[in-house]
């Protein structure tokens, strides 16, 4: 152990090394510069492009200002509204299913049966996988003749395995993507709900037992309200992620059949990288940005609320 020095720390800091203020800025600046270069500069560029007729496959054409033409066109486009409807269907059902199954699983795991830690880890695996690779192999599982999914359904319901096509049918395809997303992301909701359930102190239940509250009453009056901020957190995050869903659905259905599973991001990709309508797609991107930004704001507020627990 060294002996403490006689010089006061404030003075010695000034003499040797940098001041805290300098260090603070030195430490933060590289991150901010990178984010400005890779995120904010492109964002500003997108805003600019959204008011022009620029097309990335014709870079030499003179760039004209078109005003808010693209924004008007997008808001009046039936294609965009169809994409929004598909997205809404996808977001609503995935969140509903994932919340119910995820919370249910968390509640069961919280009974702390023997080996629950191991099984929890196993359950978590799907959410760690690459969504693109998942979409790709579910395409195989959904094949009507050779795929596992149809045969499992056939085994339990008695329907002929080759009588329905999950990815080829206009009626079933929107549900096919909901099923895969639920398979993949229920563990996410489960994990956050589990944290919520574990944050409830045991003494509250003990007090409820002393007061002879029934188990059902305890669930409604203690468990659910106290886990609710956590459930909200999971719902919001899944909402944001699925609102901008691209990779898994792109590989599973590519937006088809027709455009039944064409979610907002897929429409955006088509417009930007297949039709090369850069101005139009920039405007669409800005609209999606604003929506996600609003949701993210609510998300962070919930996050801070949960953090205080």
């Amino acid at each position: 152990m060294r002996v403490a020095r006689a010089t006061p720390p404030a003075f010695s800091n000034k003499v040797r090394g940098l001041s805290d203020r300098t260090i603070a800025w030195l430490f933060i600046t590289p991150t901010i510069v990178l984010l400005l270069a890779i995120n904010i500069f492109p964002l500003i560029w997108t805003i600019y492009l959204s008011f022009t007729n620029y097309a990335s496959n014709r870079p030499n054409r003179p760039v004209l200002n078109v005003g808010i033409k693209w924004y008007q066109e997008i808001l009046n486009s039936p294609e965009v509204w169809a994409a929004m409807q598909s997205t809404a269907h996808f977001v609503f059902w995935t969140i509903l299913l994932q919340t119910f199954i995820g919370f249910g699983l968390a509640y069961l795991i919280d009974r702390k049966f023997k080996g629950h830690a191991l099984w929890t880890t196993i359950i978590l695996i799907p959410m760690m996988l690459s969504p693109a690779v998942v979409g790709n192999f579910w395409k195989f599982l959904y094949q009507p003749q050779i795929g596992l999914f149809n045969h499992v359904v056939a085994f339990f319901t008695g329907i002929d395995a080759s009588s329905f096509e999950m990815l080829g049918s206009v009626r079933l395809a929107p549900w096919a993507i909901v099923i895969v997303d639920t398979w993949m992301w229920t563990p996410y909701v489960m994990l956050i709900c589990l944290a919520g359930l574990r944050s409830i102190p045991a003494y509250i239940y003990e007090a409820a037992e002393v007061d002879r509250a029934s188990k059902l009453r305890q669930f409604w009056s203690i468990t659910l309200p106290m886990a609710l901020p956590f459930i909200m957190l999971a719902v919001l995050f899944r909402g944001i992620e699925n609102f901008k869903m691209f990779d898994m659905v792109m590989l599973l259905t590519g937006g088809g059949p027709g455009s039944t599973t064409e979610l907002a991001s897929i429409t955006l990709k088509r417009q930007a990288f297949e039709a090369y309508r850069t101005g139009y797609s920039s405007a669409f991107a800005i609209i999606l940005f604003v929506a996600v930004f609003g949701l993210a704001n609510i998300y962070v507020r919930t996050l801070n609320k949960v953090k205080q627990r």
Partner: protein
Amino acid sequence: MSTSTAHSVVEPSRVAKRTAGFFVILYALISMAPLLWIFATAWKTPPDSISYPPKIVFSPSLEGYCNLFTTRTRQTTDYINALGPPQGTCDEVTRKREMVIAGKSNYVPRFINSLIIAFGSTFLAVTLGVFSAYAFSRFKIPLADDILFFILSTRMMPPIAVAIPIYLMYRQLGLSDTALGMILLYTAVNVSLSVWLLKGFIDEIPKEYEEAAMIDGYTRLHAFFKVVLPQASTGIAATAIFCLIFAWNEYAFAVLLTSGTAQTAPPFIPTIIGEGGMDWPAVGAGTTLFLIPILVFTVLLRKHLLRGITFGAVRK
């Protein structure tokens, strides 16, 4: 939690535990089935992989793995008979299909690209992140909450929307289809997670450690490197694994911004095709090899997963 002893008021009954265990294990088994099916498909022959009804029992074959790593051309029986004895298992398997191995496939280069880009961007994101996180954790920074929200919000942006200007920008700068371009992009996406996660970990290290070191004559920088970094090593490792997983799994940017030399594995795997459609055993093999690192990391990370997916807010 104490084990089931006297105060069993809040401890679930044995029946409740057994029932819960039954359903959780049932769910786990069902959710593992698709994955196990893909792993099994990798060991099937192409005809077995597309048999009707699907084969649960089959004799394992290396054909999937052989097809994953090679490109093949069809040849006449006479040509194949004129060749010498087959060299190795893959050669033998290929010749049975009246084909010869023409060369190596792109899987290995794509896999290596994934490794370079994932490790490169993770190193940068964690390095930038640990400095910023320390500053946010220890110093009074004006508008800290707003800057932190800004940092997080960059991760929330839809990738396709970001990709439009990045695509144009990279074309101008000559960064399209380069590993450097992808590393910078993934660093920018991951740095938000890295700052938020590491801030949580550093917040947990008592300030008194550095203060004590500084009283002992360390400068602030010295204290950061010699005291804080070693204390934060677990957190740094966990953060690095999260960044690695993101970069490893990413598809949207990769498919739009890379096409050849810098292409990573996720856009490549879906393009593996055989004669007359997808070569499912080869896809299964490619998928298996691609997912194994993730399975290992998931087990390593299991204690920190919750933090990772909530940006460090929920710590259990």
